[in-house]
């Protein structure tokens, strides 16, 4: 039993690492509707830049700052050169374009900084510690803690700052956001920059774990099922999906792998993702929609003070609720959202 719990905990903590990458996807997808395959190469690029700077003997925080600057520059360049000319194209074209971008980033990063495997030492001791009879990797705990801090910081950023609120407006309705004077292009740059920051964090943690090398880009392929399970537009979903994928993977590797002969984890998470999208909607967007629906109904029932105000929100909410109901009932509800 304790072996089961140990596997589970290890998997959950590894899942947090997947979530870290998935969060970068979610940010970009929410703001610009682009499924950014270049996220993996951004992780690699950030880690490579950081390691090269550290090798030159530059202070930790200064190196992190310079890397962040590089990532922001990449973000601005991608927005200028790639996204702006491709506005209103089919999503699959944008997806392929980000694939092209990932080739460019990978190629250039390895030209400038070399393709050999670098060691990255963050100064975290990776000795397992025992909590309640279960061995837990200290490094994984630190990674999970970092992910937690990152999520809190991002949610503060999105809920409290002006930029964050504008970003949510764009995610809700780009047309309306544009019409009230929100600068779409600037915000895209910002959000790609934030995604660059997230990939810096992910790159540091992943790089410290398995060395800074080309294989880091493959992290993307693990993040994809995380997104399918958690939904493309929810940060909470990315975390939950990561936990599910991480736990599922490590449990499957132990218990299913012995039956089928190993390396089950290359495909298990995908099968999990297909099963989840076959059986219902992604974990968190469903929750969000129903919450919106409930909140809508609650505010419609709540008596409001001013007489003029009473009718308008009620009517708006009625249509909102109808829409929500329609969405939930439609057999292709997911297609409409995509």
């Amino acid at each position, binding site marked *: 039993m304790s072996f089961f719990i140990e596997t589970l905990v290890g998997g959950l903590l590894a899942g947090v690492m997947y979530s870290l990458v998935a969060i970068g996807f979610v940010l970009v997808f929410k703001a610009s509707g682009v499924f950014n395959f270049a996220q993996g190469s951004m992780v690699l690029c950030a880690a490579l830049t950081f390691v090269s700077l550290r090798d030159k003997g530059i202070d930790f925080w200064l190196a992190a700052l310079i890397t962040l600057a590089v990532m922001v520059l990449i973000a601005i360049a991608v927005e200028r050169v790639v996204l702006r000319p491709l506005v209103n194209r089919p999503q*699959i*074209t944008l997806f*392929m*374009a980000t*694939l092209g971008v990932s080739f460019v980033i*990978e190629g250039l990063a390895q030209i400038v900084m070399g393709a050999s495997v670098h060691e990255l030492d963050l100064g975290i001791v990776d000795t397992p510690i025992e909590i309640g009879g279960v061995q837990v990797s200290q490094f994984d705990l630190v990674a999970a803690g970092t992910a937690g801090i990152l999520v809190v910081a991002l949610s503060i950023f999105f809920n409290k700052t002006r930029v964050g609120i504008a970003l949510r407006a764009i995610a809700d309705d780009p047309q309306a956001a544009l019409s009230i004077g929100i600068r779409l292009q600037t915000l895209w740059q910002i959000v790609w920059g934030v995604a660059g920051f997230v990939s810096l964090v992910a790159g540091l943690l992943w790089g410290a774990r398995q060395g800074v090398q080309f294989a880091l880009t493959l992290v993307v392929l693990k993040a994809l*099922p995380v997104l399918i399970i958690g939904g493309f537009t929810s940060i909470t979903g990315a975390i939950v999906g990561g936990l599910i994928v991480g736990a599922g993977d490590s449990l499957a590797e132990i218990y299913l792998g012995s039956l089928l002969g190993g*390396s089950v984890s290359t495909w298990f998470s*995908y099968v999990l993702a297909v099963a989840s*999208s076959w059986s219902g909607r992604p974990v968190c967007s469903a929750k969000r929609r129903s919450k919106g629906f409930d909140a809508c109904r609650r505010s419609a029932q709540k008596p409001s003070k001013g007489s003029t105000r009473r009718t308008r929100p009620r009517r708006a909410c009625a249509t909102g609720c109808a829409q929500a109901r329609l969405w939930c009932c439609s057999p292709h509800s997911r297609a409409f959202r995509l």
Partner: protein
Amino acid sequence: MVLLAALAGIPLVANDYWLNAVLIPFLIMSLTALGLNLLMGYAGQASLGSGGFMSVGAYATYNLLLRLPELPLPVSLLLGGIISGLVGVVAGLPSLRIKGFYLVASTLATQFLLEWLFNQYGWFSNYSTSSSISAPRLAFLGHDLSSPAGRYLLTLATVVVVTAVAARLVRSQTGRTWMAIRDMDTAASVIGIPVSAGKLKAFFVSSLVIGIAGALWAFAYLGTVDARSFNLDRSFQVMFAIIIGGMGSVRGNFLGAAFMIFVPILLDHLGGGVFGGAVDPGQLENFQKALFGALIVWFLIKEPRGLAALLSRAWTRLASRINR
């Protein structure tokens, strides 16, 4: 017809390098792109499982040739394709309920599952000790097709036949059903088009074509059957080929495949010519990768409907100038 005659006459003039390294992969890539284009460009179901279906076709044909040697080569190829098509139908089942990127992810599941399957179980590769296995001898009606020219002609004949059938198919009832599903499946189902059957049929035909292409890739091009040559990169390559060539166009497949095969070779030669070994080959490879990525992005920006649209536009412009 002239073009066909020219293509058939190429072995007389071209040397082995051209046949082996350029023309054979180009033709097979065109065939694969055709298969994916039927699914993605005509029926509107995006898929990243092409590499997986190629490997099914290759392994199925290999086992047929190995275990039923009395079957003639074309029959084995076709049967291998049909097996791949059936796998495609199973892989296409999620498309009945999910769409868009969710469907892409489910085809990715197919890709990884198949790759794992062929690596994991020895039966498929006849318990060969190395993970790659050499292909059996290719022969048809007593003619040995193992020479570069023979393999080229085999590939060419297959590509011509399949392309002719596919070009007829997309103009038939089936093709129109697919396009209706692509353009709006809700509307299609409202006016009585069998959407589910149409989608599954698209998956079947597409995987069949891709499976045949995979068998050719293994036997006529590489000479070995190796699951690693049908990995995710291959799927991406095929998808690039149809997006650059033009979705929903038979001609586009050839243009896109030409781009995907010729440009890297060209970059290779240019790189070798310009730097002449002065630069580390690894660096050169990275540089090519970056340049290739940039070219892809540039094409996507400049020509949204692909090279096929570019060509037909140039053609009308030329025609109107001549008529005037």
